[in-house]
């Protein structure tokens, strides 16, 4: 038995020692069923396949995680921008996980907008106008960075509140989506 497995078993033991007699009996039954899954020999699936199925099954009951959040942030951004039907259906966990990659993508593709257009779009989406002296040195990337700084200064709850509309607006911009797709193809 390796150290990792020892540690998991010890955790189960510690948690089980605080349970009532009824809950202890239920836990023993559950572990027995789990052992049957591991012993199951259906001829086609290996033990690791079965464990993946078990993991998928139980992840459905965990409200803080969805199938989407199991994906990497890049996968989530890919999913968001390639969703051609335009139906937005993100969980709160998805939206939280998307914030960092979204801003990274926005800053590196900001040039698809003029600085003033981008400022108008971000100002409306974030319900906040940042004073910017637009001159020939002002770039769209600067605008994106300033609004990102403002976004980071918000409380987490405020960020979560404004992020969905922000992401919807930016990802609905055809030039931005094309720019992301083009950069992906070049990788």
């Amino acid at each position, binding site marked *: 038995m390796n150290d990792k497995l020892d540690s998991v078993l010890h955790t189960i033991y510690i948690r089980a020692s605080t349970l009532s007699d009824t809950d202890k009996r239920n836990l023993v039954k559950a572990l027995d069923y789990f052992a049957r899954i591991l012993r199951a020999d259906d001829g086609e699936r290996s033990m690791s396949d079965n464990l993946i199925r078990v993991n998928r099954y139980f992840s459905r009951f965990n409200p803080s995680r969805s199938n989407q959040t199991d994906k990497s942030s890049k996968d989530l951004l890919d999913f968001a921008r390639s969703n051609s039907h*335009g*139906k937005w259906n993100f969980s709160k966990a998805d939206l939280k996980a998307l914030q960092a990659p979204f801003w990274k993508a926005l800053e590196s593709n900001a040039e698809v907008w003029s600085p003033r*257009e981008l400022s108008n779009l971000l100002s*409306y989406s974030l319900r906040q106008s940042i004073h910017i002296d637009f001159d020939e040195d002002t770039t769209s990337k600067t605008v994106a960075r300033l609004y990102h700084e403002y976004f980071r200064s918000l409380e987490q709850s405020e960020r979560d509140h404004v992020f969905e509309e922000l992401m919807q607006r930016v990802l609905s*911009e*055809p030039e931005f989506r094309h720019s992301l797709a083009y950069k992906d193809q070049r990788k």
Partner: protein
Amino acid sequence: MAAKCVAVINMKGGVGKTTLSFNLSLYLAELLNKKVLLIDLDPQANATIVSTDPEKYSRHLREKKTVADLFVSASKSVGPVKMRPAAKIKISDFIYDVYSKNGGGHFHLVPSELMLSSVLRGVSLGPYDLEPLVNQQVLNTYDYVIIDCAPTYSALTTVALNSTKSVLIPMIADSFGAHGTKLMKQVLEEHNHDYGILPKVVGVVFTMYQANLRTQVSQSNDIIKAWGPDAVFATKIRKNEWYRVAAGRREALWSTPVHADAKKEFDDFVAEFEKRI
């Protein structure tokens, strides 16, 4: 204090101008106890139809006047082109009482009728605003004067813009709506060129909005980018079948069993309207 005036206008038809004008007027009167005058400046007279009882409106046509009569009787011709003020115009001859509560708000309507389109030919000779009807004394008796406009750039548009000097622009976020709203920008600029009046944009408000449609979000982005964030209402009025049903029943939205979210949305819209105007 003189009434705050606004023209509800867009060069595109079917964007919800009349529905918005009617619900806004009734909301201000019924729920906020304001004194509201709605002027129907559209020959199609949809605001009149939704605001009036058919029998009472027929009686009004027999006994009183519509906005079309204003253009007929505001001035009289004394030569081939020269116009002279006609007899005094009394607003009470035009008023249809849509809603009134003792000690509270009221919603008065100056109705329209199809005949308004036929008097348009003479409007180029005046009047150029509604001052003969809505003079300073009248303005002092209302909190709001709202004009429901036709979706065309005509002499009636000029009259509305000269009278209110501010505009509320309902818009559907689709390609036709975006085109109409862009035309609206041109109209305001031309009006400034012709009359030296650049009407204040109270705001563009997205109506029949569907946030889950990427095309709608994209089209609304175009307006936000072009007009700037301050010119666009944060509140969006989502598509809701109850608006149509309520109009058919000549009722306000909040008198129907519509979902509380839609009522709240209209509350938010009116609150934002009051801040902006």
